[in-house]
């Protein structure tokens, strides 16, 4: 398929912008102080930027990007059992609410617009953020939250910065180590590295769970945080989690929950009850804001009371206005007498010297996080309420176990126990030199997206399957049938599987060549 640059024709672009209005005199750039800064000055003292952009008429642009979209698959076009990524259906109303004018057109600096009634312009968004924080705290059993982090890894980093600040303020400067199980997401050690922590890897036991004795041996006065994903990346619930948290706390360290797999726990149990001090959530996973082909997401960081003051600024508070009035309650559909509230922002002063004395870690992102994503997550939570959220969890786990029971008759399942929202197969029983990668590619021929492969690394040739709650029984059966068929093909016609995919718009791509001599931008020939 052609690149947009290859269909460019100078002068063909569809006009989007008006001429300058009469009465505004156009600046003569060549004669102004701007001369040395602009491209068209003709001043050859520096290398001039030659703006080399294509010109394509609107209908051809639309055809181009529609054609590109058809070379992509998403959850709306195919079953997408990508383990650990929670590819569940994205309700369409979430896209509409995020685009409401009152949200999409609101400027973040409008928080300062009205001097006399601060934040008067932004009460709706502050209420939304406040209520979302409150719901997420209720769901996780944590005490306070920041919605500033833009993604799960950003939330992890925020949590680790909080831990660092906490120990710094307690003058426990020697706590420089973060302990991480070998089954953890790669982001965990990478986030710890950004905070200058040293990483200690904790080996899992033969059940795929945390080896408590090994953990105990590695804990000491230098330990800052133990990061653990629960349920872990094998889809197994850490049944000794209370003891694990106790062991870590006895050593004076904090316990961090990677909440990527929260969708297996919502309404059933709470990390806050297990002993975790802090955690993050991936709103684009558990709360179904779409993945967008790789973002934007949101990674709220939640903490217990003792870490609350370390959270990023600003924080949002709800205060009584002193008025009382009749309000219509949308949930109960009744008029009720209610106190009136308003929402205010609490800031760390901008003065850098003052900030140094504050208990807050500061700011991790400009403005208020990925707000449009927060609107989607809020809409999603309010669509479900407590009963809908719990039902999601129950079905996510039911579906995973249904597929597990069917597929374990055909593939090796290293951990033969009830799983939570996902399970991991190994490549042990795949014959004739057919690999996990081959199985994944062959699935594409059957119109399915592949599971996550080769992760977690503690299972050989892992195939990590997460069906989510939003797939019908028929879809689950179709997937199982395809997996079984591929296993048969691996026996009867291994070459067919090894050369897959056959039906996709491109075949297997040479990734090695791409990395050896990187071509990362198009050049005119």
């Amino acid at each position, binding site marked *: 398929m052609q690149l947009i640059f290859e269909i460019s024709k100078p002068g*063909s672009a569809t006009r989007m912008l008006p001429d300058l209005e009469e009465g505004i005199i156009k600046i003569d750039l060549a004669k102004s102080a701007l001369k040395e800064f602009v491209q068209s000055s003709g001043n050859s003292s520096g290398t001039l930027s030659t703006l080399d952009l294509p010109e394509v008429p609107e209908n051809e642009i639309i055809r181009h990007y529609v054609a590109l979209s058809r070379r992509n698959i998403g959850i709306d076009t195919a079953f997408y059992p990508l383990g650990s990524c929670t590819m569940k259906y994205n309700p369409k109303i979430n896209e509409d609410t995020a685009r409401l004018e009152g949200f999409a057109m609101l400027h973040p600096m409008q928080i300062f617009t009205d001097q006399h009634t601060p934040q008067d312009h*932004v009460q709706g968004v502050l209420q939304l953020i406040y209520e979302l924080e409150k719901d997420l705290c209720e769901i996780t059993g944590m005490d306070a939250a920041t919605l500033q982090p833009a993604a799960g890894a950003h939330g992890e980093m925020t949590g680790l910065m909080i831990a660092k600040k906490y120990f710094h303020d307690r003058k426990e400067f020697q706590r420089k180590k973060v302990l991480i199980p070998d089954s953890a997401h790669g982001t965990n050690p990478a986030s710890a590295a950004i905070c200058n922590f040293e990483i200690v890897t904790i080996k899992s036991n033969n059940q795929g769970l945390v080896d408590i004795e090994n953990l105990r041996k590695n804990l000491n006065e230098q330990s800052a945080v133990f990061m653990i994903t629960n349920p872990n990346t094998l889809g197994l619930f850490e049944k000794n989690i209370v003891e694990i948290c106790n062991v870590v706390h006895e050593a004076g360290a904090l316990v961090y929950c990677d909440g990527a797999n929260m969708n297996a726990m919502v309404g059933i149990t709470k990390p806050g009850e297990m002993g975790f001090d802090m955690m993050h959530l991936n709103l684009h996973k558990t709360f179904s804001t779409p993945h967008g082909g790789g973002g934007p997401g949101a990674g709220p960081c939640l903490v217990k009371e003792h870490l609350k003051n370390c959270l990023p600024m600003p924080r949002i508070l709800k205060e009584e206005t002193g008025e009382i009035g009749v309000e219509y309650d949308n949930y109960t559909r009744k008029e009720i007498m209610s106190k009136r509230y308003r929402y205010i922002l609490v800031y760390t002063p901008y003065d850098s010297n003052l900030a140094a004395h504050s208990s807050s870690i500061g700011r991790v992102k400009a403005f208020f996080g990925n707000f449009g994503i927060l609107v989607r997550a809020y809409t999603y939570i309010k669509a479900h309420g407590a009963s809908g959220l719990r039902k999601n969890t129950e079905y996510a*786990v039911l579906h995973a176990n249904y597929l597990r029971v069917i597929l374990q008759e055909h593939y090796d399942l290293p951990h033969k126990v009830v799983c939570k929202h996902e399970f991991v197969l190994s490549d042990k029983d795949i014959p004739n030199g057919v690999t996990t990668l081959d199985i994944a590619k062959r699935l594409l021929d059957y119109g399915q997206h592949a599971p996550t492969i080769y992760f977690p690394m503690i299972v050989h040739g892992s195939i990590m399957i997460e069906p989510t709650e939003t797939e019908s029984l028929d879809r689950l059966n179709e997937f199982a049938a395809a997996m079984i068929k591929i296993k048969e093909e691996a026996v009867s016609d291994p070459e067919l599987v090894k050369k897959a995919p056959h039906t996709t718009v491109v075949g297997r791509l040479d990734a090695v060549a791409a990395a050896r001599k990187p071509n990362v931008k198009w050049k005119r020939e």
Partner: protein
Amino acid sequence: MDYIPNTDEDRKEMLKKIGIPNHLSLFNDIQGRLFLKKPLNVQGFVSELELRNHVTELSKKNKIISTNFLGAGAYYHYIPSTVDHTLRRNEFYTAYTPYQPEVSQGMLQAIYEFQTVVANLTGMDVANASMYDGSTALAEAMLMCVAAKSEEKQAERQANSIASFTPEILVSSTVHPEYREVLRTYATAKGITLKEIDFISSENDPSNPELKNHSGTTNLELLKKAFTQDTVGVLIQTPNFFGCIEDIKQIAELTHQNNALLAVSVVEITSLGLLKSPGSLGADIVAGEGQGFGIPVSFGGPYLGILACKEAFIRRIPGRIVGLTTDNRGQRGFVLTLQAREQHIRREKATSNICTNQALCMLAALVHIITLGKSGIQQLGELNLNKANYAYQKLKELDNFSGVFNSPVYNEFVIKCRGNAGDVLAELLKNNIIGGLELGRFYPNKTELENSLIICVTEMMPKSEIDRLVKIMEEM
């Protein structure tokens, strides 16, 4: 409500296959008090209609005023209709990161096109597939400077038997205040010394006549003095927080003389349609905010972090990069490449922890830029420049208002009020105008910025509304 397609019959069939009577026994490993006894205290709706009404009501509690002169890191630009129609393609927005390239060629090719466009606009060799926003992109640029220069600087120190080395970053105080806050947070965690370089004030006539005509931009004399052996990078923003255009070329020369790297933050990305690219002027890294292309202001996010660098740093840049290659049928195709930099392969040795980024926002920016095309992008830049400078000129001429700085501006500028700036904004608000942002709160120690406003004028602002603003302010 829920979105579960299975019936009770389906559930029973699945339970039968699993061999258990009740689905709750799947949670037997969650024991004792950990298993919740009562439902969550989370309210919800039973229908989509009620839900829609509720969220719409909430959105209406915010005040949208169409004549809005706010900029300061978030800009109102005209978004062509092509953008949202592309974003709503389900195959794009409901996809995951393109890990299976054979079924993700659409997003991969879009990223490759975006990398090309960004490299071209910024004058860089390599651009990644996005960071979270402008502030975190700048923080990552800071980390790149540290990673690229630390080893060498540390070796220098050891050779001279000076023991301790702490990487040092110089950042101009004309960089967006919230960006500087983010830098401070990252620097504290990573153990980086962050020093701020003051701007050229309009108040005390600088002794150096060369500085005289550049008030409102980074003070190069102070910058020159601030370099130490440990300086690994310099961070500036252009146009800066005051709207003034910085002299990248001189700063780049100064930075390179001191064996450090220059990262330039372009917060108002549309300026690149008009201004010389940072790369052509000597920048090593560009860390921009792409919101100005295709992304609504949306109360501060989601936006688009842009990160691009020169060829020399290709293996140090964080985030996803797409490369061109061929498939086993001889066709052109695209894959995620140079993944040895990334966290899922390298774990703690990765260049960054970034995983999920802002892919869909990237697509918005790409389609916006392509729709405007070369001439449209230049026209956009000129409209912004001319309209803003028209307003700037008119306001400076008023009795009770004056300009503060004398450096050239793109589409934002600083105006000082003789009276109280808050009262000016309040009076404008009565006339349904948001007149800009009071600047003083961000620079509490600068008396010249007391009662000053930062005002932004884009192509969206009709001349009639600019004239109305001027007229109301004239009468104050």
